[in-house]
């Protein structure tokens, strides 16, 4: 547990990110056109759902000290399979969607099996499945096949608005985020995940079923990727083998920016959400300020480095002043 007191308890990544977010809001409200509008507020949220889902599901994976590079490719594969099930197998979208999520869980668990049974590093396993899933998506469609003309009732998930203002995919995202938040922060399982991140051996000796928990975490990531695929298909209105290319890095960026340690053990779902917010607001604001898209990437990279260095610096400072405080206490005693 972090031992901080007084003003020092404010020194966290959350504070840094919140300040950053406020700064972005301040800057963009001056430079960007139509930035401060309710429409834009919901638009920003709407456009961040796919990445957001992936980032939220990635958080528990990284908390266990793992990583999942395959989520973007899995999104592509699931999108294709959904299209295939709906168009060629003639299933109604609901059934096809459920089957797709099942498939996502299955393929995610495949990562889990390789990680736990063969004791391979997650980075390598998911690097392999990153190619494998995308390859299957391309092979199934021969790269050419493109699924379109989905029924309007399904497209509503990605394009519709509840009560005319709230994007339809937002409640889905909020539900998933809440569920994962509860899982990570309010259950024994979530605490076990952190324990595994700190030390897998320690967790094992403490009686945690490390292997099966890991399986579940990767399965969850797969399932949520499949859900994200459904939202993606409904949003863009088509399913093609290149769906979700590069999304894994965006999701990891959001998670890491949100203060989750890449080595596992430390991190939070709300941190991820804040990190995501900082990224998407920046992107939206830069476009609305008529800045070129390359700047988004550059600023993302610089932000990532500054925020994390800043956090390290703060920790260092707070540890230093903590030591000084203790010394003073000892003297007075």
């Amino acid at each position, binding site marked *: 547990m972090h031992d901080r007191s007084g003003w020092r308890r404010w020194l966290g990544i959350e504070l840094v990110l919140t300040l950053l977010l406020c700064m972005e809001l301040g800057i963009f409200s001056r430079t960007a056109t139509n930035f401060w509008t309710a429409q834009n507020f919901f638009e920003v949220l709407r456009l961040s759902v796919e990445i957001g889902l992936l980032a939220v599901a990635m958080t528990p994976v990284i908390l266990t000290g793992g990583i999942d590079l395959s989520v973007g490719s899995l999104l592509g594969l699931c999108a294709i399979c959904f299209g295939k099930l709906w168009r060629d197998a003639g299933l109604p979208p609901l059934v096809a969607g459920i089957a797709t999520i099942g498939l996502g869980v299955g393929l995610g668990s495949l990562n889990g099996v390789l990680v736990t049974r063969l004791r391979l590093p997650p980075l390598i396993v998911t690097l392999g*499945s990153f190619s494998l899933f995308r390859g299957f998506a391309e092979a199934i469609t021969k790269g050419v096949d493109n699924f379109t003309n989905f029924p309007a009732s399904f497209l509503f998930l990605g394009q519709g608005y509840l009560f005319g203002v709230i994007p339809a995919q937002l409640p889905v995202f909020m539900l998933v985020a809440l569920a994962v938040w509860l899982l990570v922060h309010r259950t024994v399982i979530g605490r076990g995940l952190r324990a595994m991140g700190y030390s897998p051996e320690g967790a094992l000796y403490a009686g945690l079923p490390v292997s099966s928990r890991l399986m579940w975490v990767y399965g969850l990531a797969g399932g949520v990727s499949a859900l994200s695929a459904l939202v993606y298909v409904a949003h863009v209105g088509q399913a093609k083998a290149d769906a979700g290319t590069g999304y894994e890095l965006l999701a990891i960026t959001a998670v890491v920016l949100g203060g989750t340690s890449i080595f596992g053990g430390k991190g939070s779902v709300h941190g991820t959400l804040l990190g995501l917010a900082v990224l998407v607001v920046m992107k939206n604001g830069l476009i609305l300020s008529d800045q070129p898209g390359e700047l988004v990437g*550059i600023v993302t990279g610089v932000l990532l480095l500054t925020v994390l260095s800043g956090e390290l610096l703060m920790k260092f400072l707070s540890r230093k002043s903590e030591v000084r405080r203790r010394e003073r206490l000892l003297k007075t005693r």
Partner: protein
Amino acid sequence: MGLWLAAPDFFKARQLLSLATATSPVLVAAMGVSMVILCRQIDISIGSQFALCSVFVGLAAQRGGGPGELLALAMGVGGLMGAVNGALVAGVGLPSIVVTLATMVTWRESLRWWREGEFVRDLPETFQWFGAAQSSGQWMVIGAGVSVLGGMVWFTQFCSGGRFIYAVGSDPEAARLAGIRPRMVTFLVFVAAGAFTGLAASLNAVRFTDVDPKTGTGLEMQAIAAVVVGGVAVSGGRGRVLGVFAGVLLLACIGPGLVFLNLPPQWERAIQGGIILLAVASDGFSARTGHRNAISGGKHHA
């Protein structure tokens, strides 16, 4: 590898020669990455470094730089970018995967902003193959690749510097107690990886008559995959340079192999992923050691 027996043409001298020429730069880049991974770090920014170095080489050649200057420039620029990574990882103490993720995006997007994707054209005649004829130029590139390989084998097996990398990769704390400075080693490894990438970029650039600023896209994945298939443990401290060489060769053969076997290109990526998984899975089966499955763990938690 027996797969290629189905296509005897594959082993014709000309194909092997061109394959070797094309693979040499990748090999050099993979050498740099393998050092980083042996040191228990990772570098996913080399693709972007590669592109940036290539463009610098092209621009310098336009201004009339000679071969020596070009090589020095590329390695200098690469080393500088490696030093940025190294300083952030070893100096500040940030995780390498995050640092290099950030620098990857930053370099790539800056380059795109700056050059807007335009080729560096109208290079002098003396640029291609360093001004030599094509056949000798090809052998020059291959020779450079092989000598880097040889140098690396010698360095990692017989030099104390190379052994330091293994030591730091196995356990930084133990290495420190043994009198090695792990941070310095880590920093230098990143600098070296950058310089190797620069060398690879210039070896690649001289194969052509102009420079595509998008070059090197995906090189980091190629190199990491080759290193891992070659049996280097991502948890650091374990693996051999010759294994990496085999890994580079194996992966480089997939694409042309498919052409020779007349298989549909749609399967290329799936096969690539399958090979990576198979290779590491068999490695996992054979060496079921109790190694901790940490990803690129630089430092343990405080």
